[in-house]
């Protein structure tokens, strides 16, 4: 297993705690139950878990330029997380404890502080303006436009928590499809189901599916 993880135990506990504030647990599961930390820790372990095989059986082996790009990307993102843990702890210790040992409300305060550092509002806004979807979504974006490496720590954390909650379970999060169940998305049982053309959403179409004027 050591090859499939990146964080040391303290980093892992800190990021897991922060993810639990991104999508908190209430009467239904949140990031903690979905295993979003497992999703992220394995992703950061190296370029071996970037693309699941189309039928869900294992992962693709990257080569050439793709391997180069993902190796670079993961290296940048790792650094951002290592620095992020230090930021969280530094802010938490001003409140007298490591981040993991604070209560939920204090953790939220620390996260907001790291997201919008006092006196550096302009800088924080600039970081968010790089991304329309995950920072402060002020518009409906049609597509994912960030390269990850252009995101600050908090937008990255929000993005990866969301990915770990809602991506196909093959990636290590969304355990037992809890993310999908929380919002009522009847996704496929597996990637193989889509791959083989067995997954259909026809039951979610209109009761009368035929357009007026085109009946036989």
């Amino acid at each position, binding site marked *: 297993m050591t090859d499939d993880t990146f964080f040391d135990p303290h980093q892992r506990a800190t990021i897991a705690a922060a993810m639990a504030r991104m999508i908190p647990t209430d009467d239904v599961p949140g990031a903690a139950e979905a295993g979003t930390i497992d999703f992220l820790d394995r992703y950061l372990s190296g370029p071996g878990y970037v693309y699941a095989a189309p039928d869900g059986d294992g992962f693709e082996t990257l080569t050439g330029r793709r391997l180069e790009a993902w190796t670079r990307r993961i290296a940048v993102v790792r650094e951002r997380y290592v620095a992020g843990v230090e930021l969280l702890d530094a802010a938490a210790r001003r409140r007298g404890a490591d981040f993991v040992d604070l209560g939920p409300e204090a953790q939220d305060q620390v996260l907001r502080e790291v997201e919008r550092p006092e006196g550096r509002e302009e800088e924080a806004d600039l970081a968010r303006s790089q991304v329309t979807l995950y920072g402060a979504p002020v518009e409906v974006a049609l597509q994912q436009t960030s390269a990850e490496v252009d995101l600050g720590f908090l937008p990255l954390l929000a993005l990866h928590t969301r990915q770990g909650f809602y991506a196909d379970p093959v990636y290590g999060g969304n355990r037992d499809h809890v993310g999908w169940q929380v919002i009522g998305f009847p996704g496929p049982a597996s990637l193989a189901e889509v791959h083989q053309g067995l997954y259909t959403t026809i039951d979610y179409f209109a009761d009368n599916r035929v*357009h007026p004027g085109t009946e036989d």
Partner: protein
Amino acid sequence: MTTTRHDRTDVLIIGAGASGATAAKVLTERGLRVVALEKGPWRTKETFSGDELASINRYDLWPDPLLNPRTHRTGADQPATEQLFCPVPQMVGGGTVHWQGWLPRFTEDDFRFHSVVGGVPGASLADWPITYAELEPYYTAVEWAFGVSGQAGANAFESFRSKGYPCPPMPMSRYAEKYHAGASALGWNSFPTPQAALSQPFDGRPATVLSAFAQQHGDPTGTRSSALNVFVPHAVATGRYDLRPDSYVREITVDERGRARGAVYEDAQGTLHEQRADVVVLACGAVETARLMLLSTSARHPHGLANDNDLVGRNVTFHEFSSAVATFDDPVYAWAGGGYVSASSFQFYAHDDDRGFAGGGHMASSGVGIPLPINWTMPDRPAWGAEAKRIDRELFNHSMAASMVVHDLPQHDNRVDLDDTVVDDWGLPVARITLTPHENDLAMGRFLIDRSAEIMEAAGATSVQRVYPERVTGNCSHQHGTTRMGDDPATSVLDRDCRAHTVDNLFVVDGGSFPTGTGANPTLTIMANAWRVADRIADGRDARTTS
């Protein structure tokens, strides 16, 4: 480094996306030998899956911005920053690999837009040198090759058609049903969006299963029609199509007279090749075609290929896409079928002097953002926390968008050129996009979003948020206008047959040839026009061999 030379061919096509594959089909079926160079891979449907993370967030289909950056700025006096601006998959099939395949036709007025609306200050409007009537047979040809699902006559504002659609409309989604209900209550016309997906078996392919993973995903079932699964196989079947994927073209070469001689390209191993041809056809999409022309400098073309009048890259347009986002008490499941099995309206497509701006656009229902869980979003939703989770839970199944395509006006200073600092992973300068929206674009966007909101309100929405486009982000992957066609060589790059005015064996078949971008999804017209141009190229060949 040594360069591998290849035997001369009849036609060399750069790009194997919508336009390049169409041209390849037509040329090879008319007996010409075609070599095609495609920058990206040649993938099969077996490599696609229902994987939102890979397809959308991890650039499995998008160009990876670390390898293929672009830069963007809002004016020549502004710094350009790296941005994944108007990305389109760079692989065999191009944009048709990831599209939902909305295929409306343009209207007769689109081809004479300048004449219809008159001049607009600041805009560089031009009529097309060709008419709807000239293109109509080719629209029909593409629709019937693709098995498009639609309902002839349902769009009250459509121009004449010589034939109906080969497949009936797609099944009615709940979000399309809402849209029709709202439009109908207002007395406005709406119609099932014509779509490149099979509502019934067609040409040996089965009907679509309506997976949720459609828009922006590759299709593992082969039931959504694309250049990859229709035109490429047609061309391959002739035995005259030599398609070389993973081939990065560095330069179009010219002979001593300034005619196109061929291309120098790099294969996946980094080996250089030269391919010569009688005719060279550019089909890289409006942005990358302009970039390649500007990269191809020579003594006869010191400012780039066919760029004597400094027009290559200019007058670019991008179709900003935005929405009125509505919520309903009853579920609308706006992800079903991929979130874009839709209803459309051309009620406000035609120009109307009384509105105070020129032109109009295609309006249609759709999912919210990317309608699948990871990338689903709502305007103003916080990025994280209890409130973000609450909104996800309450609205994922209850939200939809009434969207519109902005018919943005061409402007001389809106352009694609070469960035002076940023290079791609192959070491060549990337496309730099300089773009300021015209006030007409913004006014049209506000108007169409307001009408869209009215449709949602008339359909019984419990809330509607208007998301007015305030800038151009290239968010719908439509690009046109960098090498506009026209009869006057002083004001255009290509002639009416999309042949460069100053290089008589060079053609451009992608959306770069469009003098105006229109207000409708362009790919059907891009393919119809590529078919027409390929016919002209083959006609020319026939004329020479029989004379």
